[in-house]
C-alpha cells in the first residue's frame, strides 16, 4: 500500500497526534497489577540460580557438581556441555550483532571465564534458597590468568589474549594477527592533513570514559517451560521478543517455531535487555526436569554480568580557520567490547562530529576485548562517550575564539545536504532549529551569577533506526479498535502507536485497545530500541488504519449501493461524494455483520525513511571547591522530535536521558580492583542519581518533521543522553576553570583537577 507522506507532512490540525491521553496500561501500573517477568508463578515451578566466576580471567580446569546434585530439592545442574555446540555465525540482534559461538560461551563459559561474574553453571531446585545453596556447593577449579582491564592495556603487543583465536579485522580485511583488537575501521572525508594545515589553531585532547551500566530497576528474568511436545515457551523481560526467540532457538539448536516468547512488562532496558542470558538456561533446566523453571538475577548479578556499556579512550583533535569555521577533525576511538567482540565505537563514530559541517575528517575506530562483561547498547550507544570528547573541544575552541558557543554551533551547523564523515548526506534535520531554540530560551537569556557557578552547552546527535514492525487491528462493533503489535512497551509506546491508528480513523486514542503480543501472535517486530518504536511500529499501526479505512469504504459503498470511488472518508465520517449520505466510523462498525463480516487491518513495515535526531543541552552547575561535588542548578534539554506524537512521554524520554547522562557525567562507573573484580556491584556503590540530586528538567520539543515518516516522526528515546556529560564538563570549566577529560567527574576527580590547577598544593 502506498503511503502518501506528503499528504500528512506539515499538517498541524491533528486530532489525536500531539495530545496527552492517559496511557492504556497506566492503571495496571499504578495499582501494582501489571505483570512483570518476576511476577510469574506456575504449578510445579522450579527456581533456577547461576554459578558465577569469582575471577576476571581464568581457565576452567574442572567443575564438580556432585555435591550440589546430592542436595535435597535440587532437580538439575547444567554446564556448557549441556548447550549444543555452535559454529561461528553472526546473528543480527536488532541493535548490535553477536557471534553465536560467543553468545553460547557468554551464556555459559566454555573453557575460560572472561569476566568477574561470568556464568559457569546453573541449577534448578524446588525453591530459590535451595538453588542458591546448590550454587555454593558446586566446585569449580580455576587456573587464574592475568586480567586486562583497559583498552590501552589490551592493545599492547604483549597483552594477555582473552580469546586465543581472535584476530583483528582491519579496514574490512582479516589481518590474521592474534590480538585483543577485534575491529579497526576508518572513515575519511576530504583531506584531513590539508585541513589541519589550513587551520588557524587546533585543539587536541585525550579522554577516558568509565564503563557504565544501563541501570534498569528490574533485574533480568526468564521463566521457561519445555513441554513434553517439545514446544518451548519463554516468559521474560526483553526489549525484543523476536530477537530473544531467534537467539534462544539458535542456542538450543531448535527451529524458531518451536520457541514462543511471551514478553512480560519490562522494567526498563535502555539497550541492556536485547541479548539473552537466562533464557536458554531456564529452557534446558526445564527440559531436564519437565517442569517450568524461573530464573531472576540479583542486582549483583545484573551489575557483574549484564550490560554494561563500553568505557572508552578517545583522542580528539579539531581545527578552525580565521573565520571561525571548522576545517578539520580527527578522532581515535578505542571502545571496550568486554569479554566478547562487538562494541559501540561504530555508532560513536557516526555521531562524534555529526552536528557540524566539517569538510575534512578522519576517524579511526577500534573495538577491543577487556575482562569485563560483554558490552551492550545503552541509549545512543557510543555517542555519549564520543560527544564528551568532541563537544569539550568545541567548547575550548569557542573559548579561544571568544564566541558564544551557540552562535559558533549555528555558524558551523550540519544541515540538509551536509555529508557525515561515515557517508550519509543529511536529509532535512532539526540541528539548527535546536540551537536557535536554545539561544532564544529563557534559560539561556537568564544570567547566571554566583561564585563557582558555571554554564555549559553541548550538542548531540543520534541517527535512529527503522527496522521491521508488524501490527494487526480488528474493528469492534462498538466502534473501537483492538490493536495487536509486537513492540514491548517500556515507556508509553502502546499509546504513541495507538494514537497514530486513531488519527487516521478519526477516533479517540482511548477508542483503541493496544496490546503487545507474543511471538506466535503477531508478525516479526524488531527490538524496542534505536528510538524506533513510535517511528516504525507507529507506522505499522498507521498502515493498519489505512487498510481498515479502505475496507470500510467498501462496506459503506455496499450499504449505499454506490461505487467505492464515490465514498469519501474524513475526520471519522464516511460520506457519499454527493454528500447525500453519511455514516460515522462508529455507526458503520456496528453494521459489519450485515455488510460482510469482521474487518481487520494488518501491516508490516521495514521503513527506510529514518530521520536523525539532534539535541542541545544547557546546564548550570555549582562546584563545591572543598569537596569537589558538582550540583546541578538548572538544566534544559532541547530536542528535535520530528513530530511529538505523545508529548508527555517525549518529555519523559528527554528528562530520563538527561538524568542518566548526568549520572554518567558525575557518579557512575564500574570500579574494578587490580584483580579485575567488580568492587561496586550494588546500587549503593554504583551511584545512580536520586531525585535529590536533580532539579526539575526543562524540556523544549522542537518539531522539524521527518520527511521519511507519515507523521514526521523521528524517534526520541536516545539522543537526550548524548549531550549531558560534555555539557556538565563545559559548565565545570566555566565555573572553576578546569577541563575535565575523564568520566565520571566525581568529587575526587574534580578536586584533583582543582589541586593541579592551583599548583598541586593540596587546596582548592
Amino acid at each position, binding site marked *: 500500500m502506498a503511503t502518501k507522506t506528503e499528504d500528512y507532512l506539515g499538517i498541524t490540525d491533528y486530532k489525536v497526534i500531539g495530545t496527552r491521553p492517559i496511557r492504556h496500561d497506566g492503571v495496571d501500573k499504578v*495499582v501494582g497489577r501489571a*505483570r*512483570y517477568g*518476576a511476577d510469574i508463578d506456575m504449578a510445579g515451578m522450579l527456581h533456577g540460580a547461576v554459578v558465577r566466576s569469582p575471577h576476571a580471567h581464568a581457565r576452567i580446569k574442572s567443575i564438580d557438581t556432585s555435591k550440589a546434585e546430592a542436595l535435597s530439592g535440587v532437580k538439575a545442574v547444567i554446564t556448557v556441555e549441556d548447550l549444543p555446540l555452535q559454529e561461528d555465525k553472526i546473528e543480527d540482534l536488532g541493535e548490535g550483532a553477536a557471534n553465536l559461538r560467543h553468545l553460547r560461551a557468554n551464556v555459559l563459559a566454555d573453557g575460560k571465564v572472561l569476566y568477574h561474574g561470568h556464568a559457569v553453571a546453573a541449577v534448578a531446585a524446588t525453591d530459590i534458597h535451595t538453588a542458591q545453596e546448590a550454587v555454593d556447593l558446586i566446585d569449580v577449579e580455576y587456573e587464574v590468568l592475568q586480567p586486562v582491564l583497559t583498552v590501552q592495556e589490551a592493545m599492547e603487543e604483549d597483552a594477555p589474549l582473552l580469546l586465543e583465536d581472535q584476530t583483528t579485522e582491519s579496514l574490512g580485511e582479516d589481518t590474521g594477527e592474534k590480538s585483543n583488537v577485534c575491529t579497526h575501521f576508518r572513515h575519511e572525508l576530504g583531506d584531513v592533513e590539508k585541513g589541519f594545515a589550513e587551520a588557524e589553531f587546533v585543539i587536541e585532547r585525550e579522554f577516558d570514559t568509565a564503563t557504565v551500566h544501563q541501570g534498569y*530497576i528490574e533485574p533480568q528474568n526468564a521463566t521457561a517451560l519445555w513441554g513434553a511436545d517439545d514446544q518451548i515457551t519463554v516468559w521474560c523481560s526483553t526489549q525484543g521478543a523476536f530477537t530473544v526467540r531467534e537467539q534462544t532457538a539458535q542456542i538450543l539448536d531448535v527451529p524458531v517455531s518451536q520457541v514462543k516468547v511471551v514478553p512480560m*512488562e519490562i522494567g526498563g532496558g535502555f539497550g541492556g535487555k536485547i541479548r539473552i542470558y537466562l533464557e536458554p538456561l531456564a529452557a534446558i533446566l526445564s527440559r531436564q526436569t519437565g517442569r517450568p523453571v524461573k530464573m531472576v538475577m540479583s542486582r549483583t548479578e545484573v551489575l557483574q554480568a549484564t550490560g554494561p556499556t563500553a568505557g572508552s579512550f578517545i583522542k580528539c583533535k579539531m581545527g578552525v580557520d580565521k573565520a571561525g569555521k571548522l576545517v578539520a577533525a580527527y578522532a581515535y576511538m578505542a571502545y571496550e567490547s568486554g569479554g566478547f567482540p562487538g562494541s559501540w565505537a561504530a555508532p560513536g563514530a557516526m555521531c562524534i562530529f555529526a552536528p557540524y559541517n566539517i569538510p575534512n575528517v578522519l576517524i579511526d575506530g577500534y573495538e577491543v576485548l577487556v575482562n569485563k562483561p560483554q558490552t551492550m547498547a545503552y541509549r545512543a550507544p557510543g555517542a555519549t562517550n564520543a560527544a564528551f570528547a568532541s563537544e569539550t573541544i568545541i567548547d575550548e575552541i569557542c573559548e579561544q575564539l571568544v564566541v558564544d558557543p551557540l552562535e559558533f554551533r549555528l555558524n558551523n551547523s550540519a544541515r540538509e545536504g551536509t555529508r557525515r564523515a561515515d557517508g550519509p548526506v543529511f536529509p532535512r534535520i532539526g540541528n539548527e532549529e535546536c540551537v536557535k531554540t536554545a539561544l532564544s530560551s529563557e534559560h539561556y537569556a537568564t544570567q547566571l551569577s554566583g561564585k563557582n557557578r558555571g554554564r555549559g552547552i553541548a550538542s548531540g546527535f543520534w541517527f535512529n533506526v527503522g527496522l521491521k514492525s508488524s501490527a494487526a487491528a480488528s474493528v469492534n462493533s462498538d466502534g473501537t479498535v483492538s490493536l495487536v503489535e509486537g513492540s514491548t512497551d517500556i515507556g508509553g509506546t502502546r499509546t504513541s502507536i495507538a494514537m497514530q491508528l486513531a488519527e487516521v480513523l478519526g477516533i479517540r486514542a482511548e477508542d483503541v485497545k493496544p496490546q503487545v503480543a507474543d511471538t506466535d501472535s503477531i508478525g516479526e517486530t524488531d527490538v524496542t530500541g534505536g528510538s524506533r518504536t513510535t517511528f516504525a511500529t507507529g507506522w505499522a499501526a498507521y498502515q493498519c488504519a489505512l487498510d481498515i479505512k479502505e475496507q470500510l469504504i467498501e462496506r459503506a459503498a455496499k450499504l449505499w449501493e454506490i461505487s467505492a470511488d464515490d465514498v469519501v472518508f474524513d475526520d471519522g465520517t464516511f460520506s457519499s461524494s454527493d454528500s447525500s449520505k453519511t455514516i460515522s466510523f462508529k455507526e458503520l462498525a456496528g453494521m459489519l455483520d450485515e455488510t460482510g463480516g469482521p474487518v481487520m487491518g494488518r501491516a508490516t513495515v521495514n521503513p527506510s525513511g529514518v530521520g536523525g535526531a539532534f539535541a542541545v543541552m544547557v546546564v548550570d552547575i555549582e562546584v563545591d571547591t572543598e569537596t569537589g561535588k558538582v550540583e546541578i542548578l538548572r538544566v534544559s534539554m532541547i530536542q528535535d522530535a520530528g513530530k511529538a506524537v505523545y508529548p508527555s512521554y517525549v518529555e519523559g524520554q528527554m528528562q*530520563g536521558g538527561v538524568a542518566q547522562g548526568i549520572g554518567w557525567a558525575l557518579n557512575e562507573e564500574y570500579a574494578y580492583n587490580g584483580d579485575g573484580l567488580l568492587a561496586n556491584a550494588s546500587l549503593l556503590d554504583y551511584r545512580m542519581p536520586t*531525585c535529590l540530586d*536533580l532539579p*526539575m528538567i526543562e524540556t523544549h520539543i522542537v518539531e522539524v518533521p521527518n520527511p521519511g515518516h507519515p507523521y514526521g516522526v523521528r524517534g526520541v528515546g536516545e539522543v537526550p543522553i548524548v549531550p549531558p556529560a560534555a555539557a556538565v564538563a563545559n559548565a565545570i570549566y566555566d565555573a572553576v576553570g578546569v577541563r575535565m577529560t575523564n568520566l565520571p567527574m566525581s568529587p575526587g576527580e574534580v578536586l584533583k583537577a582543582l589541586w593541579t590547577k592551583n599548583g598541586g598544593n593540596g587546596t582548592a
Partner: protein
Amino acid sequence: MPGKVHVTTTINGESVEFLCEPRQTILEVLRDQLDLTGTKEGCSNGNCGACSILVNGEVIDSCLMMGVEAEGQELLTIEGVASTDGLHPLQQKFLEHAALQCGICTPGFIVAAKALLDQESNPSEERIRLYLAGNLCRCTGYDKIVRAVQDAASEMAE
C-alpha cells in the same frame, strides 16, 4: 533449617496468617506466598526502594524486613492504596502527569509518597525530593514524579 514460623499480621486492612521460614523476607512472603506481586524487587539490599511498603504507616524497604517481623504489625502494600471508590489521588496524578515510564519503580514511589502525604499536607519540592530519595527511578529523571506528588498534595488538601 528450623521449621516454619506462624505469623499473624494485617495486610491492607485484612487479617492474614502465613507460615514462613525465618530466612524469608517479608518481600518474598508478599510476592511468592501471598500473591501480592505489586511490590517489586530491584536490589534486595535496601538501595532502590522498589519494594517499599508501609509498616504501621512508616515506609520501609520490605527486602530488609524478615517475614517473621510482620507479626502483629499493620502492613500496607500498593494493592491496598486504591479503594473501592477508585484510585488514590497519587495514582491518578501519576497517570495524569505521565510520572511513570516502565512502571517497575511506580508502586514503591506511590507507597512512599503516600507515607509522606499522610504525614504532611503541603510538602515543598525539596521536602518531596528528600523523602523520595530512597526510591530510584531510572526512566523519568524524577521531574514528573515530583510534580505528580505536588499535584496530589494540592488536591488532597482541597
